[in-house]
């Protein structure tokens, strides 16, 4: 009997309410269309070919054929598991560092900067005005063996006299932190900026120390920003290969470097595809675990 109920609504709308033109009802779908098309063409289709490539066997000269060979996955895990774990370790360290640097910065911009706020936001984004590659290469000059940074650290004994910063894992983590810091700061700023400062006044009226107020009011309210910022930092950092290429050594190669060389140098497309899928799956699992633990309870 539902037809009876709905039919009059569409057929004879109340006189005082103009009928919804059919064109208007299509609007939401039309709005979704470009995004969906984009996703379909540039994400779903490539993902499908990626999966299919990863299950192929063969060689460049004989051609690759789909044989549903899952052994490639086991092979890449045993061979490149170390690089994969290392990538997550570097990306994790960079994310923690970026949070430690980014949170006070976002806090300062949101609450203390006042009329400098826009200037500071522009400064946060400013590095993006130059190429990612140039920014990374600039670190080679900053961290040069004969440069003042290494010289100063050697003088205070933090780096041994023959030690270096360039071509060490520390330089890689530093480069990752630097390159992805804006992705941490901006979501943090967005969530802190929305916060009503009166809540902090209320907390202090209730005899909360500034520390307690931060712990019970500011931090929980900024959690959506923390989750967004850490994800936006961690995920691209885990797949990065440029920082290692310029700032790392042979023993600090990340999974991105392996995928690049599989694809371009060895032309071993199945292994490269299997590695890409493995990385995607691993990131997905990590992210889900993280969001369930930190995000879901506090955000929902």
């Amino acid at each position, binding site marked *: 009997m539902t037809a009876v109920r709905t039919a009059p609504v569409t057929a004879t709308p109340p006189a005082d309410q103009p009928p919804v033109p059919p064109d208007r009802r299509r609007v939401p779908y039309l709005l979704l269309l470009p995004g969906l098309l984009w996703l379909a063409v540039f994400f779903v289709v*490539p993902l499908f*070919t*990626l999966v*299919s*490539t990863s299950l*192929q066997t*063969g*060689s*460049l*000269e*004989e*051609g*690759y*054929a*789909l044989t549903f060979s899952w052994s490639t996955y086991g092979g890449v895990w045993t061979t490149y598991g170390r*690089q994969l774990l290392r990538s997550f370790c570097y990306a994790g360290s960079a994310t923690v560092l970026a949070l430690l640097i980014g949170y006070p910065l976002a806090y300062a911009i949101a609450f203390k900067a006042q009329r400098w706020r826009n200037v500071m936001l522009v400064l946060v984004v400013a590095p993006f005005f130059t190429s990612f*590659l*140039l920014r990374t*290469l*600039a670190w*080679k*000059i900053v961290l*040069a*063996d*004969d440069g003042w940074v290494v010289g100063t650290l050697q003088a205070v004994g933090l780096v041994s006299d*023959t030690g*270096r910063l*360039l*071509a060490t894992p520390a330089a890689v983590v530093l480069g990752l932190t630097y390159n992805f810091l804006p992705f941490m700061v901006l979501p943090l700023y967005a969530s802190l900026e929305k916060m009503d400062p009166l809540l902090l006044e209320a907390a202090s009226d209730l005899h909360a120390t500034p520390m307690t107020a931060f712990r019970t009011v500011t931090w929980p309210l900024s959690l959506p920003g923390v989750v967004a910022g850490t994800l936006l930092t961690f995920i691209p950092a885990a797949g990065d290969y*440029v920082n290692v*290429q*310029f700032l*790392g*050594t*042979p*023993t*600090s*190669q990340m999974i991105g*470097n*392996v995928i*690049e*060389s599989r*694809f*371009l*140098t*060895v*032309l*071993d*497309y199945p292994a490269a*595809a299997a590695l890409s899928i493995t990385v995607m799956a691993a990131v997905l699992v990590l992210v889900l675990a993280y969001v369930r633990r930190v995000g879901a309870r506090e955000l929902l």
Partner: protein
Amino acid sequence: MTRSTHQRGAIRFDGSLSRRGFLRALGVGGAVLTAGPLLAACGTEGTGRTGAAAGNGDPRKLAWSNWPLYLDTSDGDDTAHPTLTAFTKKTGIEVTYTEDVNDNDEFFGKISPMLRAGRSTGRDVVVLTDWMAARMIRLGYVETLDRANIPNSKNLLASYENVPFDQGRQYSLPWQSGIAGIGYNPKSLGREIAEVDDLFKPDLKGRLTMLTEMRDTMGLLLLSIGTSPEDHTMADYKKAIAKLQKVVDQGYVRSFTGNEYAADLASRNILAAIGWSGDVLQLQADDPDMQLVVPGDGGMLWSDNLMVPKGAGNKAGAEKLIDFYYDPRIAAEVAAYVNYVTPVRGAQEAMKDVAPELADNELIFPTEDTLATLHSFKVLDEGEEKEYQDMFLKVIGA
């Protein structure tokens, strides 16, 4: 020397960035995109099949793909190439010159789908390194050159005539060559380097880089264990890999690089590098003490080769172009700019007019004695290639 401050993979002397390294890294993104067509079909067809027929192009037009900074430019205008203008004036053929070869693998990824499908690549002349030229020839992707249409090819130096991948040079002619050896400044290091094993001393720990180009790095290591890169067994190669692994584990090798090493060498982040002659020659302009040593056990010689891909619209025009650049005077003008080894006989005499200060430079005009100590890497089939690369990449960490 202002004309010679650019070259294939030039280094900027502010110590910041090698253009080829930059383009190469940028190119990776593009290459992944260009690899798309290869992956688009689930199950690609083998590349063993050929069948491109020469198209009917306009005989007055020619498309040439080359590496960046690998052809002379006029002062103040990087897009004007004096020798190319002279060619157009002489033959009436309009040349579209594109610097779109940033990386052998990437470029192969770009043109191979067309060649495999038997379609034209839209290019009449391409320039690729020996081992990639070998692959192109093996796959049948290259037109046979009619040497009768290239009379100047008689100027090809004898040592280049019979390369393992193209006996008698039926498909390819070298554009420029380069030596892979050891680049260093004896004054900064405080001692002389005569052979590869001199690199593995405490003062170079972490201050040494090697090339990601497997054939150059492994070629020198193979020579250092007393075998030859042209003729060695898998056991020899494994021995050389073990040696490389040992020095990497001991922390000697700071990184494996494209030609970014040149900037590090200039800024003294590193004190020695396995590097290429053209790069080191560029560094000499700023630091006259910088030198390239061909190790006592021997060095590597590679070439980039001019080839006409299958399906080229204007093969006759391409042969005219190659003929033009085999004129000693023109070859000297190019060499004065790119600073690599020229394979053209008579270019050294012509250089006395073009740029007298370079006429006696051993890195552009190696003597017969030096040439005799230079080696090329043996031709690898696809399976060997993969095995060799796998072992090498494992050591360099990728």
